[in-house]
């Protein structure tokens, strides 16, 4: 359903202006309804690949396809995004923040309020429609961002480190809620994360990236039905997968640190 074919991407490094190869000839195939995680050391190009699939980055070589159609720029009818920062408009209340997505997507103005309210209800924020972003906690802001993405009713949901700005306990609860809310939607979901536990808890498949230049080092399957239950987090199967993932990642993280000249 989603595929990346031989994607390479070069960008100019900050400061030095040197060319950096972020992604090196990466191909992935993701089935409809699958939930996959991209995990890897900083700078491995996992977010870059996500943005190539989402049409926000035009790759140097290769291409991404959604339903066999080449991605050429953002496709808001097919793909919804959740960013690391909740990306809420500070001057608009929660309901308007959800509605602006529908407006840009081209939904008729009469349809926007019911769809926005339905999405807010899904994430449990109906009473907060008139609140402004600065009145919400980090976890609630990410729920609004999720509501905005769900209201778009796209087949694909791209999440770029959606938990990064949240504290540990909020992430835990948000992760469980996310699994519950998303298992009903049948969306194809791509998650970029730094967290081993999140990757294992949420995904069907995990793509482990190598240090820069990013390639796929290994693919791991997590065979556990959705929605994932809190007990899964403490099961042996979870720990085994997490430990394997840790082994695979550790090597790459060390390589990335050496590359960057981090002393250890």
């Amino acid at each position, binding site marked *: 359903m989603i595929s990346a074919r031989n994607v390479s991407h070069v960008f100019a490094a900050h400061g030095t202006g040197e060319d950096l190869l972020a992604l090196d000839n990466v191909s992935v195939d993701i089935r409809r309804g699958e939930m996959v995680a991209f995990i890897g050391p900083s700078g491995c190009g996992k977010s870059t690949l996500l943005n190539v699939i*989402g*049409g*926000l980055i035009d790759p140097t070589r290769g291409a991404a396809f959604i339903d066999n159609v080449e991605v050429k720029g*953002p*496709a*808001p*009818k097919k*793909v*919804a*995004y959740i*960013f*690391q*920062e909740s*990306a809420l*408009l*500070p*001057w*608009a209340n929660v309901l308007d923040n959800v509605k*602006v*997505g529908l*407006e*840009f*997507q*081209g939904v008729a103005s009469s349809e926007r309020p019911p769809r926005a309210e339905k999405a807010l209800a899904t994430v449990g924020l109906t009473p907060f429609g008139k609140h*402004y972003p*600065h009145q919400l906690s980090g976890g609630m802001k990410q729920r609004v961002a999720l509501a905005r993405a769900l209201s*778009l009713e796209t087949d694909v949901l791209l999440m770029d480190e959606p938990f990064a700005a949240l504290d540990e306990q909020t992430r835990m609860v948000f992760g469980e809620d996310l699994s519950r809310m998303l298992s009903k939607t049948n969306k194809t979901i791509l998650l970029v994360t730094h967290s081993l536990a999140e990757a294992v808890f949420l995904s069907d498949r995990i793509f482990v990236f190598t240090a820069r230049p990013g390639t796929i080092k290994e693919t791991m399957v997590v065979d556990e039905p959705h929605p994932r239950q809190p007990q899964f987090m403490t099961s042996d199967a979870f720990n085994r997968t997490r430990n394997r993932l840790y082994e695979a990642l550790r090597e790459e993280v060390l390589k990335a640190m050496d590359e960057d000249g981090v002393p250890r």
Partner: protein
Amino acid sequence: MATLAQREKARKLQGTAIKTCFILAILLAWHLVTTEGLVSPLFLPQPGETFQTFIEIIASGEALGDLSITLVELSVAFPLAALLGTIIGYLVSTHVYSIRLFEPIFAGLYAIPVIIFYPLNVLFFGLGVESKIVHGALFGFFPIVLNTIQGFARVDPVLVRLAHSLGASRRQMVTRILFPAALPAMLTGYRMGFILSFLAIIGAETIASFAGLGHRIVWYAEALNMPMMFAYILFVVLVAALMNMLVSMLESWMSVEDK
């Protein structure tokens, strides 16, 4: 919450009391130095006399004629500064290279005493209203253009990425994302530009003009009519304070949803 609100109220009351005492102390000192003959009435009239004259120039409508001229100048100069500052600021902000080129130029020009161009301005536009308008607009332009550039250039990039991912058109990007994000900085620019325009116009009137509040102050100074001159100074101070209050209120009212 109640105690917090009360404390806040008490602090405000305290501030008001301190300000009132300060003003009363200055008035008392003014009264004492003038009645006790420490300062010649040629330089400083007595406060009572000044206030009486102040009431007279308002009651007779004399001050209002000068005020209307100054306000007419301001009502052309400020919109001109706001319009040019906003348009040029927005255009400069659309490209990183034009920001790098123009922002230091505007900031540099803002830092030089623009008053040095006033004689040239008078040569071009004469001693009437026109030279005051140009001078006021020139002063007001810089804070507006600089704040507009900053406002648009500092829009959170994640909001721009979000709008791209949602398929926003160029027009939607400007009207629904960039403009509201830049508005608080622009409002600050407008407030500063408005006050600077007003100050520049008064200043220009004192240097070379036929009419206006600044002109009147110099006119009475040259006639050594100190009560009149001080009454006009008091009038300008009050008008300036009132305007500052009004634009500050307008600014916070317009950005009320942006906390």
